C-alpha cells in the first residue's frame, strides 16, 4: 500500500554494524536498541516501516522469530524490512512467522561494495510500495533477487568473493614484492591483466573499500550456508580463517561477529 508521504522509517538494532548500520540510522526517524523494550515500543508506534538490523543470527532470531520477540508488540499491518547479516534459512523463517502474525516482512541486504549505495532485496519488496520506497531511501540502487532469503544469499556470495579477492591479492602482492616488484608497479599491471579484481582496484585507489564488517559477517555466514546446503567450501573457509586471524591480531577493532565465530 502506497502512502501519500514518504514512509517514516523506524530502526531497531542489536550489536555493532559499521557502515550498514550507519546507513540505516541516517534515514530513520526513530531508533532503539533491541534490548530496550520501551524504546523499541516507541519506535514501533512512530513508524510506517520498521527496519531491523542485528549483528548475529541469534539476535535476529530472538528479535524477530521467537514468541517473546519484537513482533508481539507490533501494530497490525506493520511492514518490516530486515537488513541483518543472517542466513537465508532464518530470513525465510522470519518471513513465514510474520505472515502468520499478519505482518509483511521482507529480507534485504546492503551490498558490501561502494559505501552502502546498493541493496539486494527479496522479490516481495517490489510488490510493497512502502517497503520499496523505504529501501530506495536507504540505498538508491535496488537489486531485486528472488524468494525470501535470496537477498541474504546474494550478500553472502558477494562477501565471500570480496574477501577472497582481498586476501589472494595481498598474497600475490607479497610474493611479487619478495621477488623485488613493488606494489605500485605490480597493481596497475595486474589490473590490465587477467588477474585483475576489485581488491586491486581498491588498493590502487580506483574503487572504494568494501565494508569490512559486512565482509567479515558475510564470510561467517558463507560457512554456515555451506554447512546447511552441504556444499563444499575451500576458498571461503580459507578466507574466513585468515580473516579471523587478522581479527585476532587486531582484537580491539575486530568485528564482533568475527570474534564470536573465531572463538
Amino acid at each position, binding site marked *: 500500500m502506497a502512502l501519500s508521504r514518504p514512509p517514516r522509517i523506524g530502526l531497531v538494532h542489536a550489536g555493532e554494524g559499521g557502515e550498514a548500520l550507519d546507513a540505516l540510522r541516517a534515514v530513520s526517524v526513530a531508533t532503539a536498541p533491541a534490548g530496550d523494550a520501551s524504546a523499541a515500543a516507541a519506535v514501533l508506534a512512530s513508524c510506517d516501516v520498521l527496519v531491523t538490523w542485528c549483528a548475529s543470527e541469534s539476535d535476529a532470531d530472538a528479535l524477530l522469530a521467537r514468541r517473546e520477540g519484537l513482533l508481539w508488540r507490533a501494530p497490525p499491518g506493520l511492514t518490516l524490512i530486515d537488513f541483518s547479516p543472517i542466513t537465508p534459512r532464518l530470513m525465510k523463517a522470519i518471513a513465514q512467522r510474520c505472515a502468520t502474525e499478519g505482518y509483511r516482512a521482507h529480507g534485504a541486504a546492503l551490498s558490501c561494495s561502494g559505501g552502502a549505495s546498493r541493496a539486494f532485496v527479496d522479490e516481495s519488496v517490489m510488490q510493497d510500495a512502502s517497503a520499496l520506497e523505504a529501501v530506495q531511501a536507504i540505498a538508491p540502487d535496488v537489486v531485486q533477487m528472488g524468494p525470501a532469503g535470496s537477498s541474504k544469499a546474494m550478500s553472502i556470495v558477494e562477501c565471500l568473493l570480496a574477501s577472497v579477492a582481498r586476501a589472494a591479492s595481498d598474497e600475490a602482492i607479497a*610474493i611479487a614484492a619478495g621477488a623485488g616488484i613493488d606494489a605500485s608497479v605490480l597493481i596497475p599491471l595486474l589490473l590490465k591483466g587477467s588477474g585483475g579484481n576489485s581488491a586491486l582496484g581498491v588498493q590502487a585507489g580506483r574503487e572504494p573499500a568494501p565494508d569490512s564488517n559486512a565482509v567479515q559477517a558475510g564470510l561467517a555466514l558463507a560457512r554456515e550456508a555451506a554447512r546447511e546446503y552441504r556444499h563444499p567450501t575451500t576458498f571461503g573457509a580459507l578466507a574466513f580463517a585468515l580473516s579471523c586471524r587478522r581479527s585476532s591480531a587486531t582484537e580491539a577493532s575486530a568485528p564482533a561477529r568475527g570474534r564470536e565465530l573465531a572463538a
Partner: protein
Amino acid sequence: MKIGVIGLGSMGKPIARNLAVEGDTVLAYDIDARAVDAVASESVAGAASAADIAERCELVVLMVWDDAALREAVLGARGILACRSFRGCVVDLSTTSVAVAREVGEALAVRGATFLDAAVIGGGVPAIKAGKSPIVVSGPRAAFDRYAPALQRLGTLDFVGAQGAAKAVKIANNLLVGVMTAANAEALSLGVEAGLDLATMVEVLRGSAAGSTVLQSYMGRYVREGRYGEGLIGHALMAKDVSLACELARDVAVEAPFAEITRQAYVAFGRALGEEKPFPTAFDHYRRAAEGRFELLDSTRRS
C-alpha cells in the same frame, strides 16, 4: 630481420604469424612436427631444431610449456646455445619460473647473447591472435629498446625491470586467475544451491567489490554462450602455473596459503574432470560435488 619462434601451441602459432610482417620472416620450430607444418606459410618457414633457429635468426621468441622445456630449448643438446655463433636476443614468453629465467639469462649472457624474460598477462588466445595482448618484459633495457618494435606486433609492452621481474608479475597474475576462477566457482555454486539465478549473480557481481576479470570473462561468457572461452589452458597447466607461485613464495619466504590450496584444487579438478579440460570448468566440478556426485577438497562438508 629473421625471427625465430619456438613452441607452436595455441599461443605460439599466432605469435609466429603476427611476427611475420613488415618484411621480417619467421622460422618456426616445435618438438611436434605437425605443429610446424600447420603454421607454415609464405612468411613462416619450418626449422629443424632450436639450434637451427639460432643459426639463422637474430631474435628468438619462445612460448614453451614449462621450465624443463625452456631449459631444453636453450641449454639442450639441440638448443639455442648449441649454436656457437648465436649472439642475438632470446625473448621467453612462456609461463616459467623466476629462477629458471635467471639461470637461462646468465647462460646466454656468458655466451654474448641477451635474454629478455617476458609474459602475456591477459586476453589469452583471442588477444594474441589480434596482436593486442598486454605483455610485460624485463631484462637488459637496451635489448628491450632494440626489439620492442618487433614485439609490439604482439600487443602492448610494459618494461618492468631487471631479469626475472616479468616472470614474477606473470606468476602473481596467474595466481590470481587461478584463485579467483576457483573461488567464483565455489561462491556461484553456493549461490545456485541457495536458489539464486546464475546469470543474475554474475551480472550483480560485475563491478562490485567481488568483481574480477575472470568472473566477467569466463562466467559471463558461460552465462551468455554456454562455454567458458577459447583456447583456455587445462587444469594440469593451471596447477603447474600456480605451483610456480608456491615455489616463488617459498624462495622469498612468504606465506602463501591461497597458492597452495589453489594448486591442490586444480589437481583435484583435473583428476575428476580431466587434466585437459578448460580450467574454468571448476564451476562444473563444484556443481557436481554439490550434487553429491563426487568429493572435493572440503573442510566443512558433512559426510
